[in-house]
């Protein structure tokens, strides 16, 4: 009974806080990241707090349908291949509302993950609450987290690299450079970047 009551109170608070509040811009570099728990394409729940032994997590807001997501698909898989073993696994989160973007439904997510052979979670942010909390704006949108004590803190926000159309012509690998800096214990050169991309398909208010 108590649990139900606290749940209702929490839900009411969320409604009240989000109703009149100005649009929050989300996390900035250095911010502590709240734990989240979302459903993976394999049906199991995945939480950030599951990554107890990781040095960091490469959180990527990504989807099936955006041409930029398609352009970066192989590069995202390569990031996980290279950095999961070094303690920085990829966690992909799909933020789009499938009623607006049917190609991003949970079923379609499952199909894509299977077809591509994703060896990292591809989570569905059905309520879009996690995407709002992070302040994700487009896909793919990276939030590189690093472990500090028991917490995850945002270390880098932005694009994977500086050339969407041609992986072989990339001159700045932002995410890789940031991970290398964390691993080396040095300061991250570029902490925030912008890129052209697909806007997140938010639910109609």
């Amino acid at each position, binding site marked *: 009974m108590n649990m139900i009551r606290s749940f209702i109170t929490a839900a009411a608070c969320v409604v009240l806080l989000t109703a009149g509040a100005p649009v929050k811009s989300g996390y900035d570099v250095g911010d502590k990241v709240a734990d989240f728990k979302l459903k993976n394409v394999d049906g199991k729940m995945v939480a950030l707090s599951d990554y107890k032994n990781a040095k960091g997590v490469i959180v990527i807001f990504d989807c099936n349908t955006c*041409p*930029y997501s398609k*352009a970066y698909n192989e590069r995202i898989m390569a990031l996980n291949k290279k950095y999961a073993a070094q303690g920085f696994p990829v966690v992909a989160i799909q933020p789009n509302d499938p009623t607006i*973007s049917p190609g991003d439904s949970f079923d379609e997510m499952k199909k894509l993950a299977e077809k591509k052979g994703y060896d990292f979670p591809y989570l569905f942010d059905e309520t879009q609450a996690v995407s709002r909390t992070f302040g994700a*704006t*487009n896909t793919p949108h990276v939030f590189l987290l690093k472990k500090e004590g028991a917490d995850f803190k945002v270390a880098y926000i*932005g*694009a994977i690299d*500086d*050339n*969407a*159309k041609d992986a072989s012509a990339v001159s700045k690998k932002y995410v890789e450079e940031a991970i290398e800096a964390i691993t080396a214990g040095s300061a991250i050169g*570029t902490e925030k*970047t*912008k*890129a*052209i*991309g*697909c*806007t*997140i*398909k938010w639910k109609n208010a």
Partner: protein
Amino acid sequence: MKYLASLILCLWLLPASAQQAKIIKLPQLQEMMAQKADHIKVINFWATWCAPCVKEIPLFEKLGQERSDVKVTLVSMDLDLDPNPEKVYRFIARKKLLSEVVILDEKDPNSYINQIEKSWSGAIPATIIINSRTGKRKFVEKELHEGELEKLISEVE
């Protein structure tokens, strides 16, 4: 004879009077945005692959036709993803676009996005409305719906 037939077919397939979108660099875009003008500038950033952009384009077309005090410019971001502008040309011809279309050809989005608009994440559609007489400027990063453009324009007057 066969040659002649295919030649005629080819000529017929060429779009008759569709505009040829200019490919521009960032300084040209900045100059266009900064220039003093009597009209209100409505600058929309879009791409042929962007579904919400394509959906809202008729609103910009209608606005440009209805209001002589407004000039619409549709800035295609297609070259960021695909080096071939052909898709944009075909889109203009197919949709018979009347608004001016330019295609931005730039490298290093992390640098040029801020030079266009500091509060822009880079996601499209995005629209800037500039009134150089009042010095007022509005920026929105979302798909616009019926009536919203007019409201934004009234806010810069």
